[in-house]
């Protein structure tokens, strides 16, 4: 059992990292904990690679470790893919954390909890029973909650964000627990294998109810609309390595949960399940991308874009389930491949983007795009890496985002002709949602790069920014490298993804064939040649550069002042800001975004024709938070206020309550008896 040893040793190293992060003196603890975390990632990733290469799951059981239930670990190919995904984000995030820690968040609690958070992320996909899964899931939620609060001393917002996050993560976990317990009760056993065996014989109503409950539970972790409201609060407030892990890896585990329960445990379901998933995915993609396009806080923008990307993955997942329910196994397989590739790619580029946002925050002290600008000249490497990651998330070829979107589009395209009424209606709408999302993502990330990194600096902090330490750049570079490799040679990971798909949907065929470096859809007409495309694009750029050199009579440029309509001095305030850049989108979609705008003009006393000062205020808050959750919070608060009348502080009154309750209970017992 050498493979099982890998998992156990990895977990031990991770816990050791937590202990050393807490116990070692300040000088050593960050590097020691980081080194041990890398060890844990390496061992778990090795186990995952082994599982993906052989296709045989690793099974471990210890009856002693957890009282009453024991610990079951089953690492199958589906879980192994997610373990790899976590490792891909965790290694650079930890490296980035070393540099980031020098700027404040190296508290003992942070260096202790961060390794445990990474370890639970690595272990959740290998949980093999309900108890093990829930314990690891809760540990992951609690450790991440502590990490959101690391900077609580510096910002009030962190406390509020942590409260929101706590409500959603605990509520979601409760729902997941309920759903899994129902399954376990029917299966007479709590191991996933037993549940999967018995779940097929459950009544359709029970299966449907369990699926919906678990979907909401995992959806709240994955940041799906309308359970996303914690993301744009918690992601910005957490330290950037933690945001990268939360957004790249933890949110992906929400998708893992839906695949695990929907496909692996319940073995697929009727059409309506998957239409719900499609609907949630489409709504998340549109809502997330729209808010990303209108956000002015860099990390808030990235958080909303996480909702958008997970929405796309759910679109693929929903399409996959839909095709399976309508007996198109090949399309179902393609859809699930698309979903997993989308999540994997998201981990790479979103990790890179959050880490570079952290670098920007370290260098300038702000993440407000309206205070940034000109960073590409001041932080050339961080800026260039952010640019490539942004290009990847906008799905520009030849980067990895494009591969995921292509697969999703192909699944939908071929599904459109599958001759089923549900898919006939759902598929064109899904394509439209995906397309508008893609367009809005361009707006969001042209804004992020163009306002944040180009032009003139909009504040002194941005003007004085200097490049961050090499470790932080290297961390982002690793993830950007993954974006490029996954974009140019996606065939490297397709066999692993196929194995994972076959675990979740046994009985489906292979959806993709690798022809050297080309990708071919099996049984469908579609070929993608990413490496050839990348090569051709490179050659074309070189040829055009050469042509420019040959044709231009004076190739060296002269540096001039930009055209300012004849004005002598140009200032940073004349540029477009993030707010003004997003204004057209905001105006087109004002029914959805409902921006709150406020223009205050004070006139000069002598004449109304002259303006003394004008202030403009524009805020786009989350419509779902305002419309759905604020009323609930308000009601709870009012009830709380009203209940204060019951507590006047009089001991007599309290004794009276006790007596009353006792009498009532006795009366109730008497009636039942």
């Amino acid at each position, binding site marked *: 059992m050498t493979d099982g040893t890998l998992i156990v040793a990895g977990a031990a190293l991770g816990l050791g990292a937590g202990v050393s992060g807490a116990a070692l003196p300040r000088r050593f603890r960050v590097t020691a904990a980081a080194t041990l975390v890398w060890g844990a990632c390496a061992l778990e990733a090795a186990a995952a690679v082994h599982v993906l290469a052989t296709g045989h799951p690793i099974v471990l059981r210890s009856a002693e470790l957890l009282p009453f239930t024991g610990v079951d670990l089953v690492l199958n190919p589906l879980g192994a893919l997610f373990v790899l995904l976590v490792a891909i984000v965790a290694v650079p995030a930890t490296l980035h954390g070393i540099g980031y820690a020098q700027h404040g968040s190296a508290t003992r609690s942070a260096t202790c909890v961060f390794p445990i958070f990474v370890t639970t992320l690595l272990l959740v996909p290998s949980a093999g029973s309900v108890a093990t899964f829930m314990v690891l899931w809760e540990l992951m939620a609690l450790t991440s909650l502590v990490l959101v609060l690391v900077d609580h001393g510096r910002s009030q917002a962190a406390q509020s964000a942590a409260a929101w996050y706590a409500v959603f993560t605990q509520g979601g976990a409760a729902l997941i627990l309920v759903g899994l317990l129902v399954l376990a009760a029917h299966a007479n056993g709590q191991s996933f294998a037993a549940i999967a065996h018995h779940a097929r014989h459950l009544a359709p109503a029970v299966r449907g109810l369990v699926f919906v409950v678990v979907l909401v539970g995992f959806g709240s972790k994955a940041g799906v609309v309308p359970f996303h409201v914690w993301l744009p609060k918690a992601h910005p407030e957490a330290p950037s390595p933690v945001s990268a892990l939360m957004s790249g890896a933890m949110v992906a585990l929400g998708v893992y949960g839906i695949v695990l329960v929907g496909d692996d445990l319940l073995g697929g379901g009727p059409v309506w399940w998957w239409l719900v998933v499609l609907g949630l995915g489409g709504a998340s993609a549109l809502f997330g991308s729209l808010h990303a396009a209108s956000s002015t806080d860099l990390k808030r923008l990235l958080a909303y874009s996480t909702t958008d990307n997970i929405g796309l993955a759910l679109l693929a997942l929903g399409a996959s389930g839909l095709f399976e329910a309508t007996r198109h196994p090949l399309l179902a397989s393609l859809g699930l491949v698309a979903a997993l590739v989308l999540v994997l790619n998201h981990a790479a580029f979103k990790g890179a983007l959050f880490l570079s946002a952290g670098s920007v925050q370290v260098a300038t002290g702000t993440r407000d795009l309206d205070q940034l600008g000109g960073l590409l000249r001041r932080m050339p490497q961080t800026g260039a890496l952010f640019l490539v990651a942004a290009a990847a998330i906008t799905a520009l070829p030849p980067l990895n985002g494009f591969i995921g979107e292509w697969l999703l589009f192909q699944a939908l395209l071929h599904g459109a002709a599958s001759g089923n009424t549900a898919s006939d209606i759902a598929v064109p709408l899904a394509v439209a949602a995906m397309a508008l999302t893609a367009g809005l993502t361009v707006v969001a990330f042209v804004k992020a790069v163009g306002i944040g990194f*180009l032009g003139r600096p909009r504040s002194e902090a941005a003007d004085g920014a200097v490049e961050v330490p090499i470790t932080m750049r290297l961390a982002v570079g690793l993830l950007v490298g993954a974006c490029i490799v996954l974009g140019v040679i996606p065939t490297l990971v397709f066999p692993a993804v196929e194995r994972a798909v076959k675990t979740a949907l046994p009985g489906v065929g292979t959806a993709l064939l690798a022809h050297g470096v080309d990708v071919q859809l099996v049984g469908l007409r579609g070929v993608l040649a990413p490496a050839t495309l990348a090569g051709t694009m490179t050659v074309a750029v070189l040829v055009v550069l050469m042509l420019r050199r040959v044709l231009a009579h004076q190739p060296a440029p002269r540096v001039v002042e930009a055209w300012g309509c004849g004005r002598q001095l140009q200032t940073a305030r004349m540029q477009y800001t993030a707010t*003004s850049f997003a204004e057209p989108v905001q105006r087109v979609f004002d029914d959805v975004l409902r921006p709150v705008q406020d223009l205050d003009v004070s006139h000069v006393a002598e004449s109304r024709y002259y303006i003394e000062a004008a202030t403009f205020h524009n805020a786009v808050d989350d419509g779902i938070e305002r419309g759905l959750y604020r009323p609930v919070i308000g009601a709870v608060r009012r009830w709380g206020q009203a209940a204060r009348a019951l507590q006047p502080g009089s001991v007599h009154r309290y004794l009276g309550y006790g007596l009353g309750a006792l009498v009532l209970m006795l009366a109730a017992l008497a009636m039942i008896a």
Partner: protein
Amino acid sequence: MSGISPMIGAGIASGVQVVAVGVGGPMLVGAMRKVRCRLEGRVGPPILQPLVDIRKLFRKQRLRPDQATWIFPLAPVALVATVAVAAVITPLATTRPALGSGSDLFVLVYLLLVGSTLLALAGLDAGTAFGGMGSSRAVTIGALAEPALLVTILALSATAHSSNLPAIVRATLGDPGSVATPQRLFALGSLLIVIVAESGRLPVDNPATHLELTMVHEAMILEYAGPDLALVTVGEAMRLTLLLGVFVNLVAPWGVATTTHVSAIAIGLGALGAKVAVVGVVLAVFEVSMAKVRLFRIPELLAGAFVLALLGVVSGLVVR
């Protein structure tokens, strides 16, 4: 010339396509300008004027705004390069271009997106008000055109059960009746509106305007001068020609070469030129009779295109 291998033939054909788009693009722009001028009662510049202008621009010195970074000179190069790659893989003169198996409508859309995204970034690079205004508007229009574009592709792909462009063109050649199906007609109507929007023609944007407040594309590239401006001009003209070339080969693919024989490619090239010229002239006539719409009316136009595309998909299902 039947002795040469198909691969080399395809390579030559693709090379011809790139040159044709590169030289024909500015000529198409010149022809459209000429038609507009004549209809407005003016003589107008010669059709070759854009080519002369480009030659003139290459002789000027390159200028670079003081705040600009490497994105500013890179964007025009990337624009021309990506359109050229698109011209290599797209079936314009022949249905067997080089790398044709990877010639996917979806790939084509995203390939063209590379150039427009980098130009939008370059608009923000100089740190001026106009650049930001232009790129903000350009990306908004692009975002709104996207749903119509992808649903159109969905409708167009139905005939061939593939989004592979050569396969669609070949399927149309094999089944000429498919051109006149409601599905195809709705989709092509939508595609034409999207092409007009994406290439910044009237009524979405006025390429001849020099009033800053109404400019979209021209505001975005305001800082470019000399050889860089020449590249932007060539790139934009190439993109218009390429998109119209795709359009005509979907409307009426006849004449396009199905082999890589020299004579067939020559005929295909001639047919392509004639068809694109006809569509260009029609567009120019259309433009004369039309004013630019307000910026915030453009969403309605593009929503109309989206509805057309959706009608295309739906009618395809009904007819089936």
